[in-house]
């Protein structure tokens, strides 16, 4: 076929489609011309004008028939029919505004909800991380029976880096905030990391100016260089172009700037002193360390590596485990560890992966229910239009044509629903992001994208096809004779259709029950969390963080002395009830753990060691935070630097290591060859606080008194319990610290109840959404039941009239109809609860103190569904009682 002909063909089709009126006029004119010429010929042959015209018309046959055939020849019939179907659909839908609005709104809600959840999933789970070939980056941790995920020892790191065969680059990093002073203005605390050379290469990032650290800078004494973030370079140094080589004061020591990173460097996240993925990091300094290379018991650096092309995590882990075993033969401290290697992506999104999939599942169920609901409503209407369909079939509409026409309607509805849903999704996604729980990863990556809109369009069309096809095929099976003969009264569309509609409603109720059970157990889990005793009292407590630079606060004594003076001044602030300092606060992710200490008179079980979370606390710490004393005493002025060494332990530690004994006066030591002065005596037992509210149980823990800390804790958290509003103390804290040392920054001033509350944001979020979806599902199911019962009642009015004539009371009829609704719901409940028992397992990891198969919830959901069904059947049942016996008798 030549190009010219193609062009002609396309042009003609296009013309037939777009200039339909003109084409039609021309056709008409062309045919008229023919008739006129024939008429003229007839006149010439001797007929009079009227005869001539009639004869010409007769020869010509039916003009409209020829016109139709010419139209057929144009072969644009499908499209023309489609637009005709569409216009017809618009008219029919417009005639039933309530019906249309209900379907479109329910679809829009569920499509919108699906798209919004998908938007979150697209950003968090589908988009790659913003590092080149991010799939090759892996995190490396240690693992032992006691610690599933533990930082590395720096000497081990050197061995791994030198000897591994799996990584292109392997680096470590550790969180160490730094105070920047002398840059003009107040001192500021920078979120900073100490990194080994090659850290940025592993991430695939390069400084915008200057360079990354090299090996020589890892050596102790060479590490006074710094790489700044774009943000600090702009905000603190005015984006000066000649910053490289300049000295800046960090922790009161001069550091030379060797590099500036470009904007948008995402922190890969770390778990020890954790800074979340994507959070701001302001500065990087070289990781330097020294000491005895045989001493491998200290773990505080986190490993990250870039796999060589083609090497899997498993292969790399096997490689590292081999090295670990070799090292364990040489170093006592390396015994008992294996390698835990995890892809960076999984490490970042792992914690929310499950929840997002559960939400997608829940919202998908809602869409399914909306689909079933729409199919059901369409079926009901198809039944009402039975006669119309029969008539069209009798007039020669093919089955395909009937199906297409019905599908045009459902597609129109779903496209409307999809368009509205897309708008809802735009709003919904913003709302979702605003309500996402604290610490949710990759928030910045979440936004409406082409992919999300594509998803919306796809599910809109798919739902339209799904819920449209069943009724369309059903309707097309209509037997025209049957349909027309029935004359309307009993044209029920047959028992098959009634059964189909009942089955759809049963399915709808079942799905809704499944969602309700999910929402129910999440609710119970959340209530359990709220009701569980936190072990501390976060109300009226102001907290802040202070970090003393090690250059100016070298000795333990200097650190203890600063905090003692600061606390004395803070206690004097009006409105302060108690002022305290400690290494950490409850529920902030602190998990510093010490293992291998000695308990007087005890030996640990084989292959285990004594271990506990370690902390330090000022005398008033437990009062300020609200942790109760179980036995013994709190720290006080007796616990001085040179007096008897003391400890406070928690209840779990007392019961685990001294079961059934009075623990006061018992002693432990952290020295392998202790002198008498190396023993610490337990003077108090305090209540347990779990690491996180959802943790299974509290870990053993102990506290050193501030004055007796075995090594200097320079970074401390202040906790001030106020008599009234704790926020009023903020300025007081700042001025107290400034008076003691103007070079110090007061960071992260927060209310403790806010910190505590952040721990509930994830379960609250999941509960809110699943609850919302379940509520929506229940409403949809109620609409479905109402629709089926109401239709069935209108079909049976005649029968009800007869029953009344035969003596049935209103109560009888009411009961009959309601039983029908309850029966449908009952079967649905059985199916729904059955599937909840079957699939409940997926929720278990999100639940606290309740099983996904919680009997109380299952019973409650069943009852709720039955009550809903009763309510939804009531209006129709009432209508049934109004059946008129006379009408029925007359009709017989």
């Amino acid at each position, binding site marked *: *076929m*030549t190009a*010219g*002909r*193609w*062009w*002609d*063909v396309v042009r*003609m*089709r296009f013309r*037939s489609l777009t200039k339909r009126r003109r084409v039609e006029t*021309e*056709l008409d*004119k*062309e*045919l008229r*011309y*023919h008739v*006129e*010429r*024939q008429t*003229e010929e007839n006149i010439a042959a001797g007929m009079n004008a009227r005869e001539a015209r009639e004869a010409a018309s007769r*020869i*010509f*046959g*039916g003009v409209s*028939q*020829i016109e139709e*055939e*010419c139209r*057929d*020849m*144009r*072969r644009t019939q499908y499209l023309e029919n489609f637009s005709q179907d569409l216009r017809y659909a618009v008219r029919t839908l417009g005639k039933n505004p309530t019906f249309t609005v209900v379907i479109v709104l329910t679809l829009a809600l569920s499509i919108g909800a699906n798209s919004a959840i998908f938007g979150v999933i697209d950003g968090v789970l589908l988009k790659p991380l913003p590092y080149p070939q991010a799939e090759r980056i892996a995190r490396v941790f240690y693992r032992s029976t006691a610690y599933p995920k533990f930082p590395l020892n720096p000497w081990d790191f050197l061995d791994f880096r030198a000897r591994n065969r799996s990584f292109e680059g392997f680096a470590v990093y550790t969180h160490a905030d730094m105070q920047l002073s002398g840059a003009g203005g107040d001192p500021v605390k920078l979120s900073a990391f100490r990194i080994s050379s090659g850290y940025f290469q592993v991430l695939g990032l390069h400084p915008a100016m200057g360079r990354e650290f090299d090996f020589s800078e890892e050596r102790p004494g060479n590490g006074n260089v710094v790489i700044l973030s774009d943000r600090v370079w702009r905000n603190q140094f005015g984006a000066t172009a000649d910053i490289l080589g300049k000295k800046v004061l960090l922790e009161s020591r001069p550091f030379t700037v060797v590099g500036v990173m470009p904007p948008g460097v995402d922190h890969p996240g770390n778990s020890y002193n954790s800074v979340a993925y994507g959070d701001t990091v302001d500065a990087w300094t070289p990781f330097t360390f020294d000491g005895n290379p045989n001493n491998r018991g200290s773990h505080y650096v986190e490993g990250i590596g870039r796999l060589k092309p083609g090497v899997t995590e498993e292969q790399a882990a096997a490689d590292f485990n081999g090295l670990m075993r070799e090292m364990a033969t040489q170093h006592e401290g390396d015994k008992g560890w294996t390698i835990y290697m995890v892809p960076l992506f999984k490490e970042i999104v792992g914690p929310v992966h499950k929840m997002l999939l559960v939400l997608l599942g829940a919202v998908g169920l809602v869409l399914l229910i909306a689909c079933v609901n729409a199919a059901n409503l369409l079926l009901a209407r198809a039944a009402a239009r039975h006669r119309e369909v029969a008539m069209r079939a009798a007039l020669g509409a093919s089955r395909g044509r009937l199906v297409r026409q019905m599908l045009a309607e459902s597609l129109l509805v779903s496209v409307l629903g999809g368009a509205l849903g897309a708008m809802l999704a735009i709003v919904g996604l913003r709302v979702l992001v605003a309500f996402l729980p604290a610490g949710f990863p990759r928030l910045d990556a979440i936004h409406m994208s082409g992919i999300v809109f594509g998803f919306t369009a796809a599910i809109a069309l798919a739902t339209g096809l799904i819920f449209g096809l069943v009724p369309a095929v059903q309707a097309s099976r209509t037997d025209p004779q049957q349909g027309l003969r029935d004359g309307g009264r009993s044209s029920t569309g047959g028992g098959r259709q009634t059964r189909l509609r009942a089955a759809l409603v049963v399915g709808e109720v079942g799905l809704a029950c499944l969602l309700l059970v999910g929402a129910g157990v999440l609710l119970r889990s959340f209530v359990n969390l709220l009701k569980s005793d936190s072990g501390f009292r976060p109300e009226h407590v102001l907290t802040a963080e202070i970090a003393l630079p090690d250059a100016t606060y070298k000795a333990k004594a200097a650190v203890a002395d600063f905090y003692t003076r600061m606390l004395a001044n803070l206690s004097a602030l009006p409105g302060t009830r108690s002022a305290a300092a400690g290494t950490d606060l409850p529920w902030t992710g602190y998990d510093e753990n010490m293992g291998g200490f000695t308990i007087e008179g005890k030996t640990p079980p084989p292959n285990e060691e004594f271990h506990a979370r370690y902390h330090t606390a000022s005398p008033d710490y437990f009062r300020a935070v609200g942790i109760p004393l179980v036995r013994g005493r709190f720290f006080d002025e007796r616990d001085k630097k040179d007096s008897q060494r003391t400890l406070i332990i928690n209840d779990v530690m007392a019961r685990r290591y001294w079961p059934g004994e009075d623990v006061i006066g018992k002693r432990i030591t952290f020295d392998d060859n202790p002198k008498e002065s190396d023993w610490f005596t337990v003077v108090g037992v305090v209540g347990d606080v779990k690491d996180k509210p959802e943790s299974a149980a509290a870990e053993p823990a102990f506290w050193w008194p501030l004055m007796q800390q075995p090594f200097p804790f320079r970074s401390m958290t202040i906790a001030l319990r106020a008599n009234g509003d704790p926020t009023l103390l903020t300025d007081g804290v700042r001025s107290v610290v400034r008076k003691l040392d103007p070079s110090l920054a007061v960071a992260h001033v927060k209310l403790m109840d806010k910190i505590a509350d952040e721990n509930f944001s994830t379960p609250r979020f999941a509960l809110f959404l699943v609850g919302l979806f379940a509520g929506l599902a229940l409403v949809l199911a109620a609409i479905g039941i109402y629709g089926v019962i109401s239709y069935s009642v209108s079909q049976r009015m005649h029968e009800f009239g007869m029953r009344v004539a035969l003596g049935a009371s209103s109560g009888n009829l009411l009961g009959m109809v309601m039983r029908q609704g309850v029966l449908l719901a009952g079967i649905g409940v059985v199916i729904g609860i059955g599937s909840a028992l079957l699939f409940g397992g997926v929720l278990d990891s999100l639940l606290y103190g309740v099983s996904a198969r919680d009997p109380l919830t299952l019973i409650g959901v069943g009852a709720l569904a039955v009550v809903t069904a009763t309510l939804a059947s009531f209006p129709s049942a009432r209508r049934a009682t109004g059946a008129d016996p006379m009408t029925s008798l007359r009709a017989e």
Partner: protein
Amino acid sequence: MSKPSDLIQGTLDLLILKTIALEPMHGWAIAKRIQQVSKEVLQVTQGALYPALHRLEQQGWVRGTWRESESGREAKFYSLTKAGRVQLDKELEQWQRLSSAVVLVINAGQEA
């Protein structure tokens, strides 16, 4: 009234293409010409003619243009396109093959 099936399938297309190969014509003239040339044997009904013309036009073998006819009124004149000329040759060849084959069969029958 004869239907398109009265003519051998596809023959009408050939007749139309052949007729307008000489000069552009409108529908009525095409019908008349076929009737005259075939000595009144072939009666092309309007019911067959116009759908066929429209189909040929849609396929890009003929092109319709409106201009004044010999009777002084506007009529739609159909002319052959380049592709139509190729198609005409193809159809002619096919027809010749078909008709000689038919003749062979008929003659064979007579001999037997």
